[in-house]
C-alpha cells in the first residue's frame, strides 16, 4: 500500500514541478548574492546566509532556511491537501476503497508517502544548495567552519550536523502535513484542504510574533522550526530540538487520529 502511494506520488509530474519550483528560490538567491556580492548583514535575513559568501558549504543550510518559512510548507500543504481530497475529486477514492484498500491503511500509507516526499524534497534542496554553493562561492577546504557559538567545526561535523538538520526540517513539516491531511478528509476539494493548512500555518507564524500570544507560543506548530540552527551551536542545544520533535509528534498523532475518526466513518459519496 505504501509502495503504491509512493508510486502514485513520484510518477506524478506535478510532484517534480513542485520540487523544481521549490529549488528555484535558493538558486535565485545564490545567483543574486554572487552577482551583487551583497550579503545580508550577519544576524539578518535567513539563517546562515551571511556566512555563505565566505563558505559555500553552508549554502545547503541557507537554502533550507530560505524555503523553510513559506515555500516548503506550501509545497507540503499542496501535496498533503491533495492526498485524500484529490482522490475524491478524481473519483479514484471510491475505487480504492472498494478495492478494498482499508481506510486506516490508506491514511497511514498516505502519511508515510508524504514523509518520504518531504524528505526527498529537503534532501534535493540541500543537494542543489550544495552544488550551487560550492560552484558559486568560496569553499574553505582546509579551514574549519565557524559554529554559531564561535567554535570551529570540522567538515565532517558540518556534514553530520547538516544531515541532522535535514532530518529535523523534514519532521518539522509533519505538523502542516497532518493538518492538510486532516482537512483533506473533511472536504472533497484539495484546494480547500491546502488553503486550510496554509491558514493554520500563517496564523501560527503570526501568533508567534505576538507578545500577547506568548502563553500559547510553545504549542504553535511553527514554534520550533528554526531550531535546526541549534545543531550548529557548540555543544548542540537539544532542548528546543527535542521539544520540536515532541510537538510535531503530538500534532501528527492528534490530527491523524482526527482524520482517522472522520475518514473511517465517512460516507464516500464522491
Amino acid at each position: 500500500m505504501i509502495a503504491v502511494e509512493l508510486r502514485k506520488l513520484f510518477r506524478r509530474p506535478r510532484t517534480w514541478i513542485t520540487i523544481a519550483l521549490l529549488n528555484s528560490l535558493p538558486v535565485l538567491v545564490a545567483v543574486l548574492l554572487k552577482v551583487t556580492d551583497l550579503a545580508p548583514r550577519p544576524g539578518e535575513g535567513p539563517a546562515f546566509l551571511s556566512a555563505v559568501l565566505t563558505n559555500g558549504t553552508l549554502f545547503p543550510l541557507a537554502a533550507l532556511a530560505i524555503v523553510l518559512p513559506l515555500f516548503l510548507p506550501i509545497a507540503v500543504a499542496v501535496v498533503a491537501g491533495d492526498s485524500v481530497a484529490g482522490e475524491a475529486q478524481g473519483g479514484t477514492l471510491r475505487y480504492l476503497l472498494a478495492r478494498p484498500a482499508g481506510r486506516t491503511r490508506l491514511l497511514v500509507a498516505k502519511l508515510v508517502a508524504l514523509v518520504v516526499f518531504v524528505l526527498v524534497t529537503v534532501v534535493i534542496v540541500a543537494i542543489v544548495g550544495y552544488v550551487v554553493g560550492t560552484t558559486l562561492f568560496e569553499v574553505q577546504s582546509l579551514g574549519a567552519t565557524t559554529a554559531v557559538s564561535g567554535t570551529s567545526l570540522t567538515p565532517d561535523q558540518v556534514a553530520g550536523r547538516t544531515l541532522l538538520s535535514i532530518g529535523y526540517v523534514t519532521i518539522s513539516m509533519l505538523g502542516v502535513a497532518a493538518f492538510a491531511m486532516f482537512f483533506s478528509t473533511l472536504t472533497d476539494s484539495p484546494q480547500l484542504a491546502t488553503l486550510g493548512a496554509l491558514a493554520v500555518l500563517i496564523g501560527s507564524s503570526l501568533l508567534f510574533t505576538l507578545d500577547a500570544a506568548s502563553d500559547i507560543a510553545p504549542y504553535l506548530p511553527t514554534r520550533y522550526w528554526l531550531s535546526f540552527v541549534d545543531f550548529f551551536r557548540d555543544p548542540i542545544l537539544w532542548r528546543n530540538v527535542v521539544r520540536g520533535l515532541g510537538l510535531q509528534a503530538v500534532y501528527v498523532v492528534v490530527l491523524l487520529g482526527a482524520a482517522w475518526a472522520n475518514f473511517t466513518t465517512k460516507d464516500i459519496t464522491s
Partner: protein
Amino acid sequence: MSGTVIATHGLRKSFGAVRAVDGIDLDVRAGDVYGFLGANGSGKTTTVRMLLGLVLPTAGTVEVLGRPIPKAGREVLPRVGALIEGPAAYGHLSATANLSLSDASGPGGSRRTRKARIGEVLDQVGLGGVGKRAVRGFSLGMRQRLGLAGALLRRPDLLVLDEPTNGLDPQGIHEIRELLLDLNRTGTTVFLSSHLLAEIEQLATRVGVLDRGRMVLQDDLATLTAPTGATVVDTPRAAQAREVLGDRVLSADGDRLVVRGSEPAEVNAVLVGAGVPVHGLTLQRPTLEEVVLAAAAGSGDRVQAGAAS
C-alpha cells in the same frame, strides 16, 4: 457457487432528513444477471455504494457473498468487481499502470500473475492496443472499458456495475453486453444497475425496481413478462376479425387486435376458418417498460411545484 450472493434486510440510508434508501430487501442469487432499475435519484447509487462499503447504512444489514458488509469487506470485496458511477483513473498514468496500481492497493491480487491478468482483461475489453498510453488521452468510451477492465481484473465472483455502457457507441454496447453474458455463463453473478430499460431487458434474468428509495418490484424477468393469457393478432381485415371473434377482442389498434385466449393456434384456426387472413400471431407479453411504469410512480428528476420548497 450457489445460494444468495447479495442480501440486504431493511436497508436504509438517510442523509439528514432525506431518506435516500428506505428499507429495501435485495435478493440476488448466484448466477443471476440482476437488473437494478430505477430513475435518477431513486437511490440506486447509494444502494450500490452501501453494497461496497463506501456508504454506511443508517439501518439494516448488507450481506455480500454470505458475509456482512462493511465488516467483512476486506474478505469479500477482493472477490467483487465494481464499476461505480462512471470510471476513474489517474490521467497521467497508462492504462496498464492504472490497473497495476489498483491491483496492488488491496488484497487478493497476486503480484506474480498481475502482468498476465492485466494483459488479459485489456484484451477482453478491447483496449489491448493502448495499454501503454496515458489515460489522459482516452475517450469516454475507452475510459469506460478501462473501468470495466479494472472490475474484471481479479476474476470476481460478483460484478457490481453501475451504468456500465455509459459513453459507449452501439458497437461498444453490443461488445460489452456479449462480454457480460459470456462471464455470466462461466459463473459470474452480475448486478447491473441502470436506468436504461432496454439494457436490463436484454441482459437481466432478475429485476429489481427502485422508486424513491423503496423497492417496488423484485422478480424474475421471465415471471414479470410472462404471457398474459391473450394473443396478439395482426390482420389486414381487422373489422372482419372483430366480427368473427366477438367479445373475445380485448382491444384493437389498427391492424392489431388483442384477443383473449392463450393458444395462438386456436385463434388462428378460428380466424382462418372464417376466411380472415392472418399476418402474425403472438402470445401477448407485457414489456418491461409497462411493468416498471405500472409499479413506479414517476421520474425522480421531476419536482412537483411546491414539493421543492
